[in-house]
């Protein structure tokens, strides 16, 4: 029966002390049980919080044989000790960890919205959900009353723009109270594909609208809907600047005021995040030949000027409203399009507020599919969000299918009549609606690029080598939106990333390709050691990466290591010490991350992956995979071959392509060796026993596991 209460749990909300509530809320949906678990000092010491807690709980919950849709799989949502401070920009993030349907390995996402802070102030450092319900449910956590209920949600809509608004209305006592609600939800797309994502809501007081941020990558929404969760709702009233009970608030305030002032003075001269958000990157990437065009074949396009931030700024983004996704974020990158009238599909004619559009989305759904239409971007962005679909994976799938179609590898018989030519926005949107309905070619394509490739191979007898070269996935996850062909370091940044090719581990293209600051293998390996580890830290704490290097102090260029943004690293040391009362150094900050980073690598190993062979990219990530690509930048590639000492006089294009390929593949292998060595891994990409020991993650089961891979 809809609305029926299936389980209730009453608790005394723990008081947050120095950033921790000290407890985790555990829910088992198979058994309909709710209980609390202690957050131990050892957990805090080794895993810190956020992604660290998520990986630790998941490690203990699953075996090597666990599949994403087994009841043992979990979804863990956790902030981290710094999460929820209101003073420092970007401090409201939630880490989401689960076994991915795309990779079979742990997936982590770092998502905005109010959920993680409100969860913590409700008394919970983490929410751990295991089991599978036999009917649709809503989990409601009331942090003021100290009550958790699981309700039957059979009659509720699944799609986020309907559900998040409805639940915000339902659980808020008044208009004023809506800001105290955050809803985690997904949508129909997540039910019928493997690329489902999670939306995390917050109430935008000035727009009077429910807004959503996305835990996009790797199918977390698919797991969520497989567990039959329609929504998890948290309600907590009473957030102040002291809700974390920090040990030394002055440290936090001083860092915060420094950054607010920097943003006030410099953002307009730097990335204009407050004005256009990450969309500013469209024009930058296009200029540097880094914007994925037509399934990563090319890096720029003459029509890209139709989808730049300038266009969105002038015609679509609503200005002069605060666009932050947690209190105190003066960087405010979360742009929105208000009163957008939906043009297609089941919600045609509705006027909606769309959280659009970020760089990754614009690049993926538009440029990568050869579509250069801003209104299509908003339409696709709206539907991906409400259906619970990852825009990056969606854009990759469509781009890959379009290339296969244009090359004659697939035809209308396979696509169910869809004319999947580059630039066909109508076909892309129809495919999107099919994914949500679980029908036709959409159902097949929604399984992700890797599975789609297998399907095409089975149906068509196409050349498997060509299809691998042009299917932009590694470990089963689709590649995010930067062309890495001319940056060896970025190729490694993508290919070695723990969860799959997402740029949040390392973005080194400018340092490597443009600035030429890391010329040797050792330099690149050092960068691929430092940055992934440093960047992991944000997701342990409940922090956003953007305020680290999307705004830099005026004198940053004069510092010893400008790419590390030393002043901001010091801010993070101050924040951690200010909240927890500990006294870590920046070296200890890195150690916190290095532990979790290596633990995640070992977790991949536990799931039967995590070795060298799983770090191999499609050739298109390394260089021109087809004649068309070589031809389009022939001058560049010819010049490179000559400089490398190849005799290319009179050589056919195919021969030159083979030379370039052999060279680049050998460079990539050398990079792997150098990076693995720097990280303390063996040649097979497995952390050595010494590394595990040094990091203090040499638990018996870890040692037993990695010992098998030491030679």
């Amino acid at each position, binding site marked *: 029966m809809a609305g029926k209460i299936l389980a209730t749990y009453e608790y005394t909300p723990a008081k947050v002390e120095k950033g921790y509530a000290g407890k985790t809320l555990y829910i088992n949906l198979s058994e309909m049980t709710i209980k609390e678990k202690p957050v131990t000092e050892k957990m805090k010491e080794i895993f810190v919080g956020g992604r660290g807690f998520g990986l630790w709980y998941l490690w203990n919950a699953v075996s090597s044989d666990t599949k994403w849709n087994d009841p043992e799989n979990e979804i863990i949502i956790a902030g981290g000790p710094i999460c929820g401070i209101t003073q420092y920009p970007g401090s409201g993030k939630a880490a989401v960890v689960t076994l991915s349907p795309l990779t079979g390995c742990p997936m982590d996402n770092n998502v905005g919205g109010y959920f993680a802070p409100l969860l913590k102030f409700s008394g919970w450092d983490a929410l751990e959900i295991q089991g599978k319900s036999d009917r649709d449910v809503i989990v409601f956590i009331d942090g003021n009353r100290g009550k958790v209920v699981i309700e039957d949600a059979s009659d509720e809509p699944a799609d986020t723009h309907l559900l998040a608004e409805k639940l915000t209305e339902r659980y808020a006592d008044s208009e004023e109270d809506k800001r105290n609600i955050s809803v985690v939800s997904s949508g129909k797309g997540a039910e019928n594909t493997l690329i489902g994502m999670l939306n995390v809501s917050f109430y935008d007081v000035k727009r009077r609208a429910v807004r959503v941020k996305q835990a996009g990558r790797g199918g977390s929404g698919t797991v969520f809907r497989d567990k039959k969760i329609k929504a998890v709702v948290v309600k907590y009233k009473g957030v102040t600047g002291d809700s974390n009970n920090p040990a030394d608030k002055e440290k936090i305030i001083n860092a915060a005021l420094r950054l607010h002032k920097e943003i006030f003075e410099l953002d307009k001269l730097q*990335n*204009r995040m407050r004005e256009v958000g*990450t969309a500013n990157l469209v024009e930058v990437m296009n200029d540097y030949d880094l914007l994925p065009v037509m399934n990563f074949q090319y890096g720029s396009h003459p029509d890209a000027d139709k989808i730049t931030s300038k266009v969105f700024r002038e015609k679509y983004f609503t200005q002069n409203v605060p666009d932050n996704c947690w209190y105190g974020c003066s960087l405010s990158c979360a742009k929105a399009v208000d009163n957008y009238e939906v043009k297609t599909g089941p919600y045609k004619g509705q006027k909606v507020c769309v959280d659009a559009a*970020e*760089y990754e989305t614009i690049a993926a759904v538009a440029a990568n599919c050869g579509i250069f239409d801003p209104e299509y971007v908003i339409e696709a962005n709206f539907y991906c969000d409400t259906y619970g679909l990852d825009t990056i994976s969606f854009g990759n799938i469509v781009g890959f299918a379009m290339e296969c179609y244009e090359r004659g590898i697939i035809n209308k018989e396979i696509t169910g009549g869809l004319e999947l030519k580059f630039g066909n926005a109508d076909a892309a949107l129809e495919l999107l609606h099919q994914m949500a309905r679980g029908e036709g070619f959409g159902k097949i394509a929604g399984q992700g690029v890797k599975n789609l490739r297998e399907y095409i191979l089975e149906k068509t007898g196409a050349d498997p080598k060509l299809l691998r070269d042009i299917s932009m996935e590694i470990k089963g996850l689709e590649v995010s939106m930067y062309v890495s062909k001319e940056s060896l370091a970025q190729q490694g940044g993508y290919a070695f990333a723990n969860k799959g090719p997402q740029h949040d581990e390392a973005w080194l293209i400018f340092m490597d390709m443009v600035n*030429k600051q890391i010329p040797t293998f050792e330099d690149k390996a050092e960068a691929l050691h430092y940055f992934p580890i440093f960047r992991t830290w944000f997701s342990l704490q409940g922090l956003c990466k953007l305020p680290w290097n999307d705004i830099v102090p005026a004198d940053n260029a004069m510092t010893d290591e400008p*790419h590390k943004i030393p002043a901001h690293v010091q801010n993070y040391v101050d924040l951690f010490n200010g909240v927890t009362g500990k006294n870590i150094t920046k070296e200890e900050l890195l150690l916190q991350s290095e532990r979790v980073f290596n633990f995640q690598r070992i977790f991949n190993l536990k799931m039967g992956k995590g070795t060298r062979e799983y770090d191999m990219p499609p050739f298109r990530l390394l260089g021109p995979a087809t004649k068309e690509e070589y031809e389009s930048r022939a001058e560049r590639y010819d010049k490179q071959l000559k400089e490398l000492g190849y005799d290319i006089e009179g050589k056919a294009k195919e021969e030159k392509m083979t030379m370039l390929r052999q060279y680049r593949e050998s460079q990539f292998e050398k990079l792997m060796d150098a990076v693995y060595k720097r990280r303390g891994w063996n040649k097979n990409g497995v952390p050595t026993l010494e590394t595990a020991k040094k990091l203090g993650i040499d638990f018996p089961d870890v040692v037993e596991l990695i010992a098998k891979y030491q030679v």
Partner: protein
Amino acid sequence: MIKVNNEDLDFTDGMTVEDVLRIKKYSHPMITVIVNGKVIPVDSYSTHKIKDGDVINVIHFMSGGC
């Protein structure tokens, strides 16, 4: 000939920092220009004259979703 980020670029008379940035298509807003080891202030990009043989580093910072 001048060097820009370790690559040769033809020198032309009267060339300014702004010209170099335009030729190289360096449009990223977060850059620092260093000519022969000296940082050039943003407001002199259009006036600072390049000499033949200058070594120029245009350091790009990361940004955005990356």
